């Protein structure tokens, strides 16, 4: 007779493979069904293009689309950087002075709860188009960075803070060696949200600006292709946007993991 095998502890490799393979199978099945339905029912591409057509369009229009992708990514990056620097800086300012926090925090909330799609047209009136788009992206991404950093700076261990006080730490030392490291997991979580949001902000602003003219971002391509009934290109642009979002999230998640892997619970494996 063979030795009893514990059924609860599957090898971790198999578990991981399953988590990767299953979504891929679902994805492939979906694509095959989509392709099949379009071919069997003979649906015209301006109603619903088949996946193969979308891929072909992506290759054929790559010159135009890659340029739009670069534009959108640049806008997203600029918005993200502006939101990160602004959010962290304002949170630090709030942390230094309750007066500033009480005076400004309500306005940060107002900015957050007002839908950006409604602000975008106004920004386009007052700012140059490229600036307006970046400002839009950063407005959307700004709040999670601000609120997470504020939360992080306020969750410093009370006894550790006492220890710094006991050893006569200056405010700069306390900030550098205690508050910022303690807030780091929160800041990184905020940045992870902000990455996706700045892409959303960029797209929203491009769509709002799109009809106004010279924009060439992916969202503008989608709007433009819609007017021209170039549905395959719409789908191809959407695919690129979606991929961009996944890559942005992935990059930020990896950065966060690398920074926190040695000490923070969130980055450690469940087993020890």
């Amino acid at each position: 007779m063979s030795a009893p095998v514990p059924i609860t502890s599957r090898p971790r490799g198999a578990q991981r493979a399953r988590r990767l393979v299953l979504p891929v199978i679902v994805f492939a099945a979906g694509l095959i069904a989509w392709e099949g339905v379009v071919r069997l029912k003979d649906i015209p591409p301006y109603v619903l293009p088949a996946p193969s057509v979308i891929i072909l369009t992506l290759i054929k229009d790559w010159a135009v689309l890659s340029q739009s992708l670069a534009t959108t990514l640049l806008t997203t990056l600029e918005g993200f950087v502006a939101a990160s620097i602004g959010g962290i800086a304002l949170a630090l300012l709030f942390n230094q002075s309750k007066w500033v926090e009480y005076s400004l925090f309500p306005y940060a909330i107002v900015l957050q709860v007002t839908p950006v799609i409604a602000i975008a047209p106004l920004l386009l009136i007052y700012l140059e188009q490229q600036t307006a788009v970046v400002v839009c992206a950063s407005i959307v991404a700004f709040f999670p960075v601000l609120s997470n950093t504020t939360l992080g700076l306020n969750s410093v261990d009370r006894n550790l803070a006492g220890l710094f006080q006991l050893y006569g730490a200056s405010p700069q030392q306390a900030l550098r060696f205690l508050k910022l490291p303690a807030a780091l997991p929160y800041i990184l979580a905020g940045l992870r949200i902000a990455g996706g949001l700045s892409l959303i902000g960029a797209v929203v602003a491009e769509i709002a600006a799109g009809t106004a003219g010279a924009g060439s971002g992916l969202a503008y391509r989608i709007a433009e292709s819609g007017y021209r009934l170039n549905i395959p290109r719409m789908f191809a642009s959407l695919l690129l946007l979606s991929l961009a979002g996944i890559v942005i999230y992935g990059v930020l998640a990896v950065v966060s993991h690398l920074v926190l892997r040695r000490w923070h619970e969130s980055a450690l494996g469940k087993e020890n």
Partner: protein
Amino acid sequence: MVERSTPSAVEASLTALAVSLRGVTKTYDSGVMALGPFDLAVRKGEFVSLLGPSGCGKSTALRIIAGLSAPSSGTVRVARHEGEVQPGHGIGFVFQEPTLMPWTSARENVRLPLKLGGVPKAEGRARADAALASVGLADFADSFPRELSGGMKMRVSLARALVTDPDILLMDEPFAALDEITRFRLNNDLLALWRSLGKTVIFVTHSVFESVYLSQRVVVMTARPGRVQADIRIETVEPRGEAFRTSTAYGDYCRKVSGALAPSYSGQSLL
């Protein structure tokens, strides 16, 4: 008859004191009176335990001595290093939790007080390593707190308190969260360190057995607001060891200290 001393005698007795509290009270903003009036005099090199029920203000007293909290009234005197530049360096503080920075290594945690005091990095690292070695963690300098056991984390915390070579070591229920085996071992290590380094130790605990085992004097506190209920001297053959823990004298002292502690609970629900 009131006892009087000449000014020079008062001065002499004061310089022999490491810590003296007179009529110290602490009332929180909420109006809760946590402490006092509380008097305490600890001689240099003495090992004193503050023992009392939870919430009696013993931790508050310790924080006041450390300067982490200001007394509402009364006077606090803490002897300082000769020519001490920065306040606080004459005091090492060990919290109930290890209170380590999780984002950095044991060595960097121990080096923190030196770093804040402007000690050059190389010297700081050497002193941190020496302090870690003194608590038996020489091999774990590069480990992160997360990778250490509860007892080891507490040792790192102790090493950090010792790294500035303070005259006074304040310990706030440092071993309360540890299992008994680890706690006994750390008790012995702490006694050995105290004997070799000659520091003044004020040790807050709610364990009768721990206080009797460790200290030369047990100060029993009343329930809130904390005052001195009894001041019991533990006299035994030094150095203490496991033999003392099982001796009848130890049992007698524990009974005596428990007896002094009992009135604190009268009229109070134990829940």
